[in-house]
């Protein structure tokens, strides 16, 4: 199926129906709203990161300035869901998301939970502006549906890219020896579980990591195979772009991957999960398919 799809060039970007596009807009707006913290006042910018090395972003730490930025964000989100003024709303949402993420990463510690949302916003802005540019350059008739399909298509690519990059980095940094080294992840499991305990001195987190880590050291081959299946999944994620079925399969497999990582290592990549549900799994579309199928029986 994959070879056939690739050879045939695949039906990309796919055509989405109105109910899918509305659902995606609404859910993505919710994700954007959730990924912005209520305040940045608790953050001290000690090690400027990214664009903060060039521009002073301390104004965002001020609660009043941040509140105004949030009001503008809500207005932009309403416009986004309504499908109007995207040439203003999307660049604003992207800029705000990037600045907030940059401040969050400017305290000497770089986190990786918010990047995916900012990257999808960057992709959406680029896709929208590309459609506008094409319309002006070629004088082609304005087709909002096609332009929004492109926005969705580029969003999917941004999501896929994060997993693909992660897989490539694993292979590059381990010089291709990731499979053989991966059982040593047991030490990281002890560390991440201990760190979870020290966050709030939660007694429920004590001892869990040590039990799993001990088991892993006894079964290195099995651990290597299981973990490498995760690497294989990440490495082949671009295949998720070739058709709705593959998108569904990869979306669910990646959700399962995150669930297992969360269970064992207590690492939560909530926004990855949300975006997978919205742009790869696409529940509204499959719900309608199942409903139609059930009616015909």
């Amino acid at each position, binding site marked *: 199926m994959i070879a056939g799809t690739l050879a045939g060039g695949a039906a990309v970007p796919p055509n989405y129906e109105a109910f899918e596009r509305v659902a995606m807009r609404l859910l993505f707006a919710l994700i954007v709203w959730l990924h912005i913290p209520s305040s940045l006042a608790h953050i001290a910018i000690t090690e400027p990161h*990214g664009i903060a090395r060039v521009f002073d972003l301390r104004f965002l730490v001020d609660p009043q300035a941040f509140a105004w930025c949030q009001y503008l964000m809500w207005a932009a989100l309403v416009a986004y869901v309504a499908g109007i003024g995207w040439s203003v709303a999307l660049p604003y949402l992207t800029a705000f998301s990037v600045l907030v993420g940059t401040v969050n990463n400017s305290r000497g*510690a770089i986190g990786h939970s918010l990047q995916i949302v900012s990257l999808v916003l960057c992709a959406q802005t680029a896709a929208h502006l590309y459609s506008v540019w094409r319309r002006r350059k070629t004088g082609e008739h304005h087709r909002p549906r096609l332009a929004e399909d492109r926005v969705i298509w580029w969003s999917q690519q941004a999501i896929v*890219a994060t997993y693909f990059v*992660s897989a490539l980095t694993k292979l590059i940094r*381990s010089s291709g020896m990731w499979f053989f080294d991966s059982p040593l992840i047991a030490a990281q499991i002890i*560390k991440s579980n*201990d760190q979870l305990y020290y*966050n709030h001195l939660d007694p429920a987190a004590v001892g869990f990591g040590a039990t799993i880590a001990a088991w892993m050291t006894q079964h290195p081959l099995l651990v290597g195979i299981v973990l490498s299946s995760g690497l294989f999944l990440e490495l082949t994620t671009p295949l998720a772009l070739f058709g709705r079925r593959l998108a569904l399969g990869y979306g669910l497999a990646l959700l399962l991957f995150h669930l297992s990582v969360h269970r064992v290592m207590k690492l939560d990549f909530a926004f990855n999960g949300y975006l997978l549900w919205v742009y790869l799994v696409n529940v509204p579309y499959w719900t309608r398919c199942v409903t139609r199928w059930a009616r015909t029986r």
Partner: protein
Amino acid sequence: MTRIARKIATFVRRTETLPLLVITAACLFCKEFYPLSHFPMYSSFASRTHYVYLADGNGRPLPTFPTAGMNTPALKKVYDHALREERTRIKSLGNTDAAGGASEVAAERVLRTVQGSPAARTAGTTPQVLRMYRVDIELVTHRFEKRTTLLAEVR
């Protein structure tokens, strides 16, 4: 080779998958420049690792989040960053004798930052004596051993 490149270019143009290639290349090239990242989490492993935690003057652990306004993994990253900087500073001075004390200096610097952080000011419960401990985890003959060391103490 040119033919293959041309075929790939045609495929990318037809399927409009250039964003995937651009984002992938940009992330790998820039490594860390928000929102770009090469996502290095768990990309390489060693038989040893470490983390740090905060404690009061009696060595009783303190919850990291309310004390420092960040979680324990972030505190470790801040400490590691400060340690790398301190080692670079010592190296630039050519003072190799002082290299052993880099971890203590880095820890003290982080503790001072935590003491003066907006989170500590808001919480108002930071103890007068603040300590940082380092826990080293090492795989020794199929079992893990932990070693805890006091890095620094500030008042």
